[in-house]
């Protein structure tokens, strides 16, 4: 690990083809985080020196590399050809956009079937077995639609800054109190950020679930699968390729193509412009539902759309590393493990993120506890069933 840290000290982001599609402003952002982001990163990621940022650079580089590989795969070219044929992101942009619009055309008559298929595809995964049981038992509703995103209750950093004039007394008090974050605040923000990063990473990973239902999709349009692939890899690439700008409400309302919202403790609302984006949003919604109750309303109210940028750029590697610590046969326990892990101090999350034998020991204990919790629940409803 120290060797790797030294290496990162020298080269910072380690990107294929010099990070041809990685916008310089995004590189700068990852390499020199603003203080409020850095505080969170320090709280949840192990340090590899360089003022605690080398680890972030390492996982962001890894997530970016994976996106390049996928884009090349779905465009049917090698990594070298990809970078040669498409020297900049703007040269890829028209392909991504035309795939997006062609998908809308192809899906148009099958929206309802695809909405049901999206929920089934997600819930049929072992990872979401317990969630599926809750849905079947009427304990949870997943309201999933191929439709315009609903971001009425979301907030950008810009809007949050502009809000003081409109604040209620309670909100003003909260804001005054939070000018200097307490240690508890920083702890909760770090844990929430980890949970959201994990959610984004998992949701990017689950973009590609469409391969599981290729037969059904081919009946709608045999070109869908390939178009989905280009769209998913291409939009993931856009997280790295678009310049780092402060979001505005206008931008959010016009550019967003999906939303995930926990409407209440029993309802998750997901909206997506098409099938893979809806799948992505369902996964994000479930993970957000699993983790939001560790924070207060004041802390949740300060979570902005802008903060998703970093979570998206680094999430997939965080999620993959997390999954590697869990045996395949224990995948059904993942939601219980996450729920339990978030109840522990952020230091434990740091240990898990660091990997190695310490992380494996922590995970073994979490798996044991998760199995017990799930078995207790199952035994109370069906004494014969046990994992």
């Amino acid at each position: 690990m120290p060797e790797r840290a030294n290496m990162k000290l020298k080269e910072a982001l380690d990107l294929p083809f010099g990070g041809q599609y990685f916008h310089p402003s995004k590189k700068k952002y990852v390499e020199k985080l603003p203080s409020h982001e850095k505080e969170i990163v320090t709280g949840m990621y192990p340090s590899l020196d360089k003022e605690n940022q080398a680890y972030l650079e390492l996982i962001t580089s890894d997530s970016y590399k994976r996106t390049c590989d996928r884009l090349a795969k779905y465009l049917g070219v090698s990594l070298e050809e990809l970078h040669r044929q498409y020297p900049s992101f703007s040269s890829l942009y028209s392909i991504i956009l035309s795939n997006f619009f062609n998908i809308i055309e192809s899906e148009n008559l099958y929206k309802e079937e695809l909405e049901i298929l999206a929920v089934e595809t997600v819930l049929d995964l072992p990872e979401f077995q317990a969630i599926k049981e809750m849905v079947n038992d009427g304990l949870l509703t997943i309201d999933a639609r191929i439709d315009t995103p609903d971001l009425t209750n979301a907030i950008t950093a810009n809007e949050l800054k502009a809000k003081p004039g409109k604040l209620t007394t309670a909100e003003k008090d909260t804001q005054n109190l939070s000018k200097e974050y307490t240690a508890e605040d920083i702890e909760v923000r770090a844990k929430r950020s980890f949970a959201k990063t994990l959610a984004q990473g998992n949701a990017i990973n689950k973009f590609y679930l469409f391969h599981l239902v290729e037969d059904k999709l081919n009946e709608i349009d045999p070109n869908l699968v390939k178009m989905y692939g280009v769209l998913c890899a291409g939009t993931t690439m856009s997280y790295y390729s678009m310049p780092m700008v402060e979001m505005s409400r206008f931008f959010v309302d016009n550019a967003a193509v999906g939303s995930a919202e926990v409407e209440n403790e029993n309802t998750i609302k997901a909206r997506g412009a098409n099938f893979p984006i809806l799948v992505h949003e369902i996964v994000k919604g479930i993970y957000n539902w699993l983790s939001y109750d560790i924070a207060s309303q004041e802390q949740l109210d300060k979570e902005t759309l802008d903060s998703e940028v970093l979570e998206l750029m680094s999430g997939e590697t965080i999620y993959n590393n997390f999954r590697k610590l869990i045996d395949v046969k224990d995948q059904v326990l993942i939601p219980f493990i996450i729920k339990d892990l978030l109840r522990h101090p952020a230091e434990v999350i740091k240990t898990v993120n660091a990997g190695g034998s310490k992380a494996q020991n922590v995970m073994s204990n979490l798996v044991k506890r998760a199995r017990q919790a799930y078995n207790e629940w199952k035994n109370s409803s069906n004494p014969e069933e046990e994992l």
Partner: protein
Amino acid sequence: MNDKFDDLVNDLLKNTLFEAPMAPVEEPEVEPDIETPEVEPEEKPAKPVVPKRHPLQPTRPDVKPRPQAKGPISPDVQAYINARKS
């Protein structure tokens, strides 16, 4: 002489202080028996059924997170979709 006197005093004390007849105790008036209707043994109220909480259910139903977004693909993508709808 003195002994006899002592015995006398002792007898006196004994009789007046320790063996004095008690004042007659009034018998309490006994209420006539009133027939009381037989009361069915009261049924214990059933314990309220507390719905089981699934271990994954949120523990803070009083809070609500903000929605998360997917995007952007293009700054004008919604304009295109809306145009198609109309």
